[in-house]
């Protein structure tokens, strides 16, 4: 069990899709839970569908392209550009690896994983 799972104190269930999400992320793959019954994209990942309450869920790749909703620069640790991005109907805050992206710009998810503190990270660039 990852330290990440322990930290979030996720319950032990027959299929822990949150763990599966983090396992994929650790391998650099972005797969999110989708309800087998009603097709809802369950985001942030959870072990139950918020629409039909089904626990039958598959993990699926998403179309990685989307658009930038808003962006900013953080100077807290080092200077980095971040943005709120919408891809395939879900919204994520991630790092923007290119400087000339503006709200409305087409972007794609290029990299993801867990950082040194086991926090997820998502990185986007121009599509």
């Amino acid at each position: 069990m990852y330290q990440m799972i322990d930290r979030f104190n996720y319950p032990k269930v027959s299929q822990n899709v949150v763990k599966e999400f983090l396992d994929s992320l650790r391998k650099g793959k972005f797969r999110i839970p989708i309800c087998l019954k009603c097709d809802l994209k369950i985001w942030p990942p959870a072990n139950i569908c918020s629409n039909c309450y089904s626990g039958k869920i598959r993990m699926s790749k998403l179309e990685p392209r989307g658009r930038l909703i808003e962006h900013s620069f953080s100077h807290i640790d080092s200077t980095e550009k971040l943005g709120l991005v919408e891809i395939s109907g879900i919204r994520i805050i991630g790092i923007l690896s290119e400087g000339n992206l503006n709200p409305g710009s087409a972007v794609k998810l290029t990299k993801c994983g867990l950082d040194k503190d086991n926090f997820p990270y998502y990185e986007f660039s121009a599509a």
Partner: protein
Amino acid sequence: MSRVGIVDQSTSKFTKDTLLSVEELACEPCKEILERHKNTDLKIDSVFLSTTADVQYGSTIVSEYLGLKPRISQRLDNLCNSGSNAIVSAYSMIKSGLCKNALVVGADIKQTKGSQLVWDISRGSFTLPVYWAALFAKVHMRRYGTTEEQMASVTVKNRKNAYLNRNALFRKKISVKDVMDSKKLVEPLKLLDCSYVCNGASAILLSNEADSKMYTDFPVWIEGIGSSVEAASFSNVSSDLSSIHSTKSASDMAYSMTNITPKQIDVAELHDAFTIMEIMAYEDLGFCKKGDGGKFVSQNDISINPRGGLLGTGHPLGATGVAQAVEISEQLKGLAGNRQIKDCKMGLVHNMSAAGSSSLVLIISKD
């Protein structure tokens, strides 16, 4: 139907450092209230503790520390609007007749885990609240022309008010330049655009109408309540970041319950966790038109955050909503001392959580 009154209220001094536990902090303002009523036959029959800290059996421990044996003892956590939610829980129990006199206390410590919602992994590694606040600010600036100076003016105003509040953490007046020159965190927000999570506790005593009139000559009344929850995650709040939708819904509900309009509010405590959030609250509470929040900072028709808001007073998460209600109660009763607003009859509390994903609005009146 019988009303619910605020009989008494108290706030401890908010601090950066404390040796007290959350439960001990919570006792501070309660002791003051109980001391004032020790020669009456007041019987506290319910205790509500609002805190985001990692405590067990907190409200019952506080009850034992205070020598109380309430019938109902509950702890409530809803992040930054825990305090106003605890007030609503107490209000509801009094309204239902289950209890008559409720002590509602909010207390928190600087180290509380409540200051970051780590559950929300849609935020990636950007877990600090300043990240989402900066995104709201960027949208507001782009769409409505709100400026960094207007945002800085919110801190200047609230610090000026905090100067008159002996319980406030930041009692030094500052200038727009001070805010503009403070450390850049996440553009456009700088250090002094942000509230400071600190230690503190506040308490109010709520009673049914008959007991309110018995235990004080100056009760004020909770006349309106509005509450709205959109989501827990930032990814599932409304996609339009120019507005705090839960605040709009909650205030519509509260105004409708009291049949009053925003223009009738004399004094308001707004949830200024970040300067931009106060500006957006002006708009979503109906104090000004959408997009005019930046200009509204300099108005004088409604007294906003007379105790200094979160920016001037500090932000002990679980205590904040209660502290806001304490201020409105003191203002309406004429007990606010050197920061008393003249002739105020109607007050409003706006308390929200986690990127505005939930909001609560209280309307409190003086008869």
